[in-house]
């Protein structure tokens, strides 16, 4: 199993009362899965993705990637997990303003020692997301849809086993949304699992699994 989440709980303090953003969630993801998680705002979708991406610590439960308990990792191992096993597309615009599009895409390649360079691969990924001509541009020169494509290309630079996308089409027009969803389908078709949070029901048709999040609980809908 690529990813195994068991009894995952994340509790916050809201005022004086405890509040469970994630409540005993179980989830298994295999290679090539395209999982859509839907739910209302505040239902805990983004929190779940960030727990799986190792960007947030749970209150209890376990997360295993390729049979390894990621919660036991120290900083270096956790960073390597985020860098190599996970391709993360955060919510909103998450491109570094001081780097060119090409440098943004190839940046994660250099966080850990790897042979060779990342330029050719970064250019190829920019081609796959349809913006090869923007390689030398800076983020401020790009539209919202183009920035999202840069984030996706960047997430794929280290050939992750799983692509995690937090509302990747939230502020995009219909055509761009369709293009990005088509891209995600191709990615999952190539063996990389896609785990996507969305509140746009139209997009779930691109995936092979749909899960619903409500009050921190996750349930799978049969398609």
């Amino acid at each position, binding site marked *: 199993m690529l990813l195994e989440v068991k009894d995952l709980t994340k509790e916050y303090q809201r005022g004086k009362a405890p509040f469970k953003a994630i409540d005993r969630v179980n989830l298994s993801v295999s290679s090539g899965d395209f999982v859509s998680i839907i739910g209302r705002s505040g239902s805990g979708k983004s929190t779940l993705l*960030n727990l799986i991406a190792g*960007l947030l610590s749970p209150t209890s439960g376990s997360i295993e990637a390729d049979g390894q308990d990621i919660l036991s990792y120290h900083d270096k191992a956790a*960073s390597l997990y*985020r860098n190599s096993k996970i391709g993360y597309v955060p919510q909103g615009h*998450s491109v*570094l303003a*001081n*780097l060119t599009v*090409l440098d943004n895409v190839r*940046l994660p390649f250099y966080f850990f020692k790897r042979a060779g360079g990342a330029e050719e691969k970064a250019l190829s990924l920019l081609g796959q997301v349809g913006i090869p001509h923007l390689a030398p541009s800076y983020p401020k020169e790009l539209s919202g849809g183009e920035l999202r494509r840069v984030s996706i290309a960047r997430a794929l630079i280290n050939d992750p086993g799983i692509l995690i996308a937090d509302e990747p089409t939230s502020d995009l027009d219909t055509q761009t949304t369709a293009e990005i969803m088509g891209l995600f389908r191709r990615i999952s078709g190539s063996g990389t699992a896609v785990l996507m949070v969305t509140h746009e029901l139209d997009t779930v048709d691109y995936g092979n699994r749909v899960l619903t999040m409500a009050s921190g609980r996750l349930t799978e809908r049969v398609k």
Partner: protein
Amino acid sequence: MKQRPLTTNRISIYNIRRKPFRAACLIIVVAILAFALFGGAILTGSLKNGMNSMQQRLGADLMVVPAGHESDMKGILLGGEPAYFYFSGAVARQVAQVGGVAQATPQFYLSSLSADCCDEAVQLIGFDPGTDFVIQPWIARAYGGAAGDGQLLAGSGIIIRDDGTLKFFNQTYRVAAQLERTSTGLDNSVFMSMDIIKALAAAAHNAGMNFLSDEAPEDAVSAVLVKIDKGYDADAVAAGIRSGVPGVEVIVSQSMISGISGNLGSLVGYINTISAVLWILAVVVLAAVFPFTMNERKKEFAIYRAMGATRKRLIGIVLNEALLASAAGGVLGTAIAAFVVFPFSAYIGSRLNLPYLQPGTGGILGTLALSLLLSFAVGPITSLYAAVKISRAETYMTMREGE
């Protein structure tokens, strides 16, 4: 074009390049600090050096001069203001008899003129090679030998003719060597044996310039320099000379130095205080600015973390940016200080009216290295806390806060 690897250093450079205003503010603060550190250190170093040089050059514990000529003597020693004054050579013999006097040597002073007869108006100092314990040891140390018969030794400020000679009262003499700078009035003096200076005095007399109206040229001296016996108090010996030898004034070298060093001490203290205040101010400003800039860049750092940057790398990027800005500021500040302090050293020295002798190359390089080190360190030190704090923040929360 082949793209270069995105190392921590390169990421820092790109971040600085794309935010020139933010970088310029940091660079300016560090440049002010470096200017104060390097400029202040060179200034205080030169003053202390000048003081040490003057102490070494005086070489005598007491200076006996004709009554009323104490300020003239100080003018010769400190300001290089040419003067002449005389008393009988018998005084030297009397001084030598006073209790506590270990050695006594006469000196003879003459002023050349700004006229056809002379190359320039400077102080001429004649010493007695037989008894001298002040000029010759210094010459031996500074020049590595002694002047030959009929030769002169010129202070560092004297302009020597191309053929290596100097002319005074129509008499031309070869200059054996030019001495290193001392920052005292002796830099504008020419040294010679008693025979030469007496010959010059006679030549001046023959030319109608009557320096020695009251004394026979053969017997006159200008000052008697005294070294006191161990165990004797300089003030007590000075009092003995004053009471035993009429018509003289005694300058106690240590008292003169103490007076100058009192002024110098206050000035050095003032410069050091300004440097320290500026350093503290720079540290406080930078320590206050870095958390603000970190706060502004929360989302940026969260993205690095989400992409797999370790805490160590994140801290590395922040410290490296701070180091690059500090280095640029440090180099800029020391360069400006160097352009101010070095070309105008003579002017600064004369304005301060204190002995001012720039440290040697080794001293300057040492000061430069220390100033650059402190300037370079100030950015990383002041940003360290903010860097560690941002690296420890929970990425998801930071990313949300940064939106």
